[in-house]
């Protein structure tokens, strides 16, 4: 049994990305939306790693590290925003957060 072909990885990546997009668009809970964004990021990471490995280049892997770093920072900031919003509005429903004030 040889190595898994690149197409499989990319297909998985595309499926994960689509799930993320759908999650962002259809779910109402901001925390779920936030998680869906993380899924999209990781779907892209998967595609980067797979391509890097198949081409024997390190570039893609380096970018993945950057993405993970940024994602960590983004998670910290994003969760802080969600927390702040919840404290003020007592809701995590995106439909109820439609006014861009406080």
């Amino acid at each position, binding site marked *: 049994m040889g190595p898994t072909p690149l197409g499989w990885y990319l297909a998985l990546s595309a499926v994960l990305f689509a799930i993320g*997009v759908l999650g962002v668009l*259809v779910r109402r809970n901001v925390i779920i*939306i936030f998680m869906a964004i993380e899924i999209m990021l990781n779907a892209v990471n998967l595609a980067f790693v797979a391509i890097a490995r198949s081409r024997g280049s390190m570039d893609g892997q380096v970018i993945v590290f950057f993405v993970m770093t940024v994602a960590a920072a983004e998670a910290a900031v994003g969760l802080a925003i969600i927390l702040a919003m919840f404290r003020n509005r007592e809701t995590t429903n995106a439909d109820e957060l439609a006014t861009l004030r406080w």
Partner: protein
Amino acid sequence: MVIETTLLRWIIALPALGVLFHVFVGRRATGAVKWVGPGLVGAAFAVARAAASGLRVMPAGTALHDHVYTWIVAGPFRAEVGLRLDALSAVMALVVTGVGFLIHVYSVGYMHGDRGFARYFAYLNLFTTAMLILVLADNLLLLFVGWEGVGLCSYLLIGFWYEKPENAAAGKKAFLVNRIGDAGFLLGLFLLVWTLGRQGIWTVDIETIRQHADVLGAVAVPVCLLLFVGATGKSAQIPLYVWLPDAMAGPTPVSALIHAATMVTAGVYMIARLHWLYALAPAALAVVAVIGVTTALFAAVIATAQVDIKRVLAYSTVSQLGLMFLGLGVGATGAAVFHLVTHAFFKALLFLGAGSVIHGLGGEQDMRRMGGLRPHMPVTFVTMTVGTLAIAGVPPFSGFFSKDEIVWAAFSGPHGAPVLGVLAFVVSFLTAYYTGRLLVLTFLGECRAPEDVRHHIHESPAVMTLPLAVLAVFAFAGGWLPVPAILEPVIGVTEEAEAPLWMFTLASAVALGGLGLAGVLYVARPDLPGAIARRLDGFYALVRDKFRVDELYDATVIRLVFAAADVSARRIDPALIDGAINGTGLLVAAISGASRRLQTGNVQHYALSFLVGALVLLGYWVMR
């Protein structure tokens, strides 16, 4: 030959400095105004005199030139602020500053104690400045600056006592009527510059245009006619003369300044300056001559039936200007400018004399309530008599020489015709008659002033009578100034035979006849004028009402303009202008109302639009 000098700018700068002084310091220093106002004009006269005598010792045809700065550069088109003094502009500058100076001096006495003393002298100096710009300009654009400047100043000065509505209305009338003429002048200027420009000669410089005038061809006729429209406005010719008789609403020295030294001479000067252009357009010259002689006759007839002393003189000015245009029209440019100069002397004299009479009678202008003033106002009487003899053309007074040249040119000049000459004689006769009538009604016979006025009749102070005396000397002797000979290098020699002896005799007879008729009608047989007026009932009323030209304009032009304005205000303005403005607002409101719905505030809708956008871009890159 042209000699560069920086002297000329001072002729204009000196009165301009006076304007600044009167505006910024004058109100707090009325005592200084009466020295600065006339003094600076006198200084300008001295500078002009120095420049003119410099010009005389140089070879004929020399001109002084002063390039002040470059005004407009637009592609190939250039306009400079440049001044040029040749024989013609020297004569004009000397008349403007010289007669202007005397009028300034006289004004010190006449306007003594007026609330707007400093304002008056600011306007008066500005008037002189504008006229000097007009006269000294070396290009037509700068000439137009002066042209507009005198128009503005006439408005300011005619409406000087603006508290009275009819004075303000007279000022407005002068301004608006002049505006019509100015529009014609401007169109003529555009046509001239554009026609030359298409041949690659982009200029407004008069000398350059002169060198290339033959390029104009048939366009010369419309150019000349349009410029002449401007001249009819400024110089009060048919059909735009109506503002001048009303211009007497201003202080009397202002009338003297407008009628003699500045303003009305602008049109005559402009055509004399461009005489080579008019020589290319004989049709335009014929129009100038016909309009001139018609105006001269028309205004002279009106003047015979007026009772207001200033109104008689105002129509007299219109009439005399008509004679000058007749001279220009028949090709006797030198004679026309000569008459302009002598007219400046005697008309300034007559107006200032009339002002002295009005001053002495406490503001009375109606000649029916004057009479018998000779013993009370000896200086005014003597000087006015000199002015009357001069304007009537009695030899050897100045008017005789200049008017005689015009009349003879109308007979025999290169573009003359016997009928023009005969009409000019009729005008001469009427002129002698109505000025004689003015003199008799004012100074001779019984005093018809009311009892309370009669006690206060007094001769004017020396500051007023002295200018009268100086002007009287010039009105007497001005005819011996060799003006046409001085002008020859600029305007060329007019080929005409010397006037024969019968001309002199006839002209003198006509002048004396007119004066004599006035004497007979108003001294020997004072009952006759009333009887004649009754016999000519309808016609007399028509003449007395100035042929009802104002009423005619009112019924046609003015009513038409008001009707058009009314339609604009009530129909076009609400529908078109307001509609366009409101429509723009409504359109924006509608667009924003529709697009506002895109902004829901819901992040997921925004996310969806990201997705759609990303897919569109993706599709674009894939399909490409």
